[in-house]
């Protein structure tokens, strides 16, 4: 019999291998220690001759005693040493096609270098110079203040920016590093002495961990040791600071930021424990089902059925000590309240009805596929390791997570929904 091409039945999906059947492996990170005790985690993989070096300092806003000192110190690391001007520093990295970025978070602050392997030797010594010999000139600070204030003025007109500030304040209180934000007077109040002191305490004499990844040069250890192994880092332990969470008493807030705004930024959030809590892994599956990916309940209902928004997501805030479960969207001004109503409806459904096996399998497969895709490439792998190290976890967390995704039951998911989807425990905010 002659095979007819038109016999192809397009209504039947090809056989798939369920992603839950995949055996995922996290590539082991090699660890070594520089002469001065700095721990280095490395991943050697990939084809391109490039390296990522990330220096993580315990220098986040957790450690500052005045608003935005940590962020300012981190930002100005590139703005001049006793030997080089800001221009010369930038020119040096840029000449070698290297990217030097820095970021300040709550617990930590980092310096990240992306570089072609062939130029690593030329740029590492200057990274070392930045963390030992920055001078924080007054004129650099003045320009920074002026430009940050201008930038902030623009951001303050955006409803999403304003909403992100307020919701964290409601959750943690303004005096907690997770709830604090910066206003114009905070920039105006900055002075050089405090910055120099912070730099001295948390960079020059600070605590540092290094993460490197890429198709690493054979002498990577020597290169790092030469650049950083003799610095006075990791000598002193950093004083532990504790902060009390003082959440807002009023849970439902409505703010008009722009009377002519055509959209509102909707945030709904509840406190949630950190990664060490036994529910943390399990609740990731519930979160995905609820609002964690394009096929989630929230996205299907509020975007794909009602068209209230371009996108709606739920996620956990990335904090070490305490997290928060957040639902976030920008919706048409006239449908913000309806959106909130739909979010609660979706919570109720998950509390009452068991998720059917088909949908649960889809979420499992999606999550596993997504982790598989995310393990692609040395930078992604080291990112995962960094996350574990900074949160006091090890690779067993990876395998337990995978196992949780594969085995959690519909009943457990419903129980988690009942435990955490308590409307009275959610802060609600709309900023127009």
């Amino acid at each position, binding site marked *: 019999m002659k095979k007819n*091409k038109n016999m*192809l039945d*397009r209504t039947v*999906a*090809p056989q*798939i*291998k*369920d*992603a839950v059947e*995949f055996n995922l492996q996290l590539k082991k990170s090699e660890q070594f220690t520089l002469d001065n005790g700095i721990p280095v985690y490395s991943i050697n*993989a*990939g084809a391109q*001759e*490039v390296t990522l070096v990330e220096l993580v300092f315990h220098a986040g806003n957790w450690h500052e005693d005045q608003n935005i000192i940590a962020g300012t110190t981190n930002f100005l690391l590139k703005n001049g040493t006793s030997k080089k001007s*800001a*221009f010369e*520093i*930038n020119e040096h990295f*840029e*000449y070698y*096609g*290297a*990217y030097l970025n820095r970021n300040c978070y709550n617990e930590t602050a980092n310096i990240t270098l*992306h570089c*072609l392997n062939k130029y690593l030797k030329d740029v590492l010594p200057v990274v070392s110079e930045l963390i030992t010999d920055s001078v924080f000139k007054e004129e650099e600070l003045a*320009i920074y203040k*002026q*430009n940050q204030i*201008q*930038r902030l*003025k*623009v951001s*303050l*007109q955006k*409803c999403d920016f304003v909403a992100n500030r307020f919701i964290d304040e409601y959750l943690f209180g303004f005096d907690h590093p997770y709830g604090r934000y910066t206003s114009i007077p905070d920039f105006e109040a900055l002075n050089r002495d405090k910055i120099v002191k912070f730099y001295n305490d948390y960079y020059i004499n600070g605590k540092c961990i290094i993460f490197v990844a890429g198709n690493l040069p054979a002498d990577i250890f020597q290169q790092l040791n030469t650049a950083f192994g003799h610095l006075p880092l990791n000598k002193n332990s950093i004083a532990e600071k504790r902060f009390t969470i003082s959440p807002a008493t009023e849970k439902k807030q409505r703010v008009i930021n722009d009377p*002519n*705004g*055509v959209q509102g930024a909707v945030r709904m959030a509840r406190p949630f424990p950190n990664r060490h809590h036994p529910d943390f892994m399990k609740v990731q599956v519930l979160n995905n089902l609820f609002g964690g*990916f*394009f*096929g989630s309940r929230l996205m299907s209902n509020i975007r794909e059925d*009602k*068209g*209230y*928004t*371009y996108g709606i997501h739920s996620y956990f805030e990335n904090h070490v000590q305490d997290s928060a479960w957040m639902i976030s969207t*920008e*919706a*048409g001004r006239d449908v913000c309240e309806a959106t909130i109503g739909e979010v609660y409806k979706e919570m109720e459904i998950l509390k009452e009805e068991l998720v059917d096996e088909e949908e649960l*399998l*889809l*979420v499992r497969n*999606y999550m*596993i*596929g*997504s982790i*598989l*895709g995310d393990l*692609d490439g040395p*930078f992604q792998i080291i990112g995962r390791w960094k996350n574990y190290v900074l949160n006091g976890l090890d690779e067993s967390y990876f395998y337990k997570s995978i196992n949780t995704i594969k085995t959690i039951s519909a009943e457990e998911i419903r129980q988690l929904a009942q435990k955490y989807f308590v409307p009275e425990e959610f802060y609600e905010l709309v900023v127009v």
Partner: protein
Amino acid sequence: MIQYERFVLDNGLRVIVHEDHSTPMAVVNVMYDVGARDENPNKTGFAHLFEHLMFGGSINIEDYDEPLQMAGGENNAYTTNDLTNYYIQLPSENLETAFWLESDRMLSLAFSEKSLDVQRKVVCEEFKEHYINKPYGDVWHKLRELSYKEHPYRWMTIGKELSHIENAQLADVKSFFFKHYRPVNAVLVVAGHVSLDEVKRLSDKWFGPIPMGEKYIRNLPQESKQMQARLLEVEADVPLDAFYKTWHMASRLSKRYYAADLLSDILSGGGSSRLYQALVKEKQLFSQVDCSHMGSVDAGLLTIEGKLVKGVKMSDAEQAVKEEVEKMKSELVNEAELQKVKNKTESMIAFEDMSVMNRANSLATYELLGDAEMMNTELSRYQEITAEDIKKESEEIFDENNSNTMHYFSKN
């Protein structure tokens, strides 16, 4: 060197296979040769709205996303003024699922009223989120209209106005689909942990039976040479005055493009770039300043834009930009500065090429431009550029008669 194989199906679909067995994943990238420039001026925003509708179910498959997620896959899409791209990443064992899904929506969409109805609203919210409800959100809208008088680059991919999207009809959707979404107007790239034989077999099986369609012959009005400088003054409810200036530049395929790209890197893009050093750090006229270009297939725009430090006069800011631009026209850049931007380009390409998804995307883009092999020759095109080329190109571009200036004043 990026290795790849290329073949063409009988229906004109171009297929490129790029094997990389260091990953367990496969990438399937389908690029259609249609963008916002191909729209009817009275129905703008359509190519992008259409991209949304491509997820609303196809002729034999009710739901696009579910089976893909079930197969452990993720996908997304984007529309530019020049092209529309759809891409999937999934475990390579499930490669056939991607072929099944992508071929069915190339065969025909379901054309559902409900999907059109919802996506009209979603895109209107996207329009509001990015272009209405943000300070300076209307800037590109205005700059394009000021700079282009004939070419369809005069509107943005999101569309000229909300009403164009609100009024989109199902009949428009159908005719757009059968005009542009045909195998003969598309490029398929399959990359990652895949084999050439397998991709050939799957392409024949799933894409082979789709009717070829008519080759879309693009016949767009090209912009005439601008003979006189234009100025637009705007007042808006924003906190800071801003300055914008555009100049017409060469198309993506011109040799001149590479010189223009490098000269924009000399002017901005890093802490040691000229505009940042002179205008933000030394003269302190701007709190931020940027030089960029559209990289568009047809002749594009090079733009310098910046927000003024409070209290600085627009005319002083404008004059300072002019001085930097004049320097580019009158003096050769020194070798170290030229080498710096070439090194930056080399490095950027190396980092981009780390991801299989980016490689697949670039191969599709270059194939659509005319030759996937550009993937491997681009860097040498940049290396060939000399200081004289940069100076000559600066003289061409930075002609005052070729410029469009917008003074964007704060009402407050």
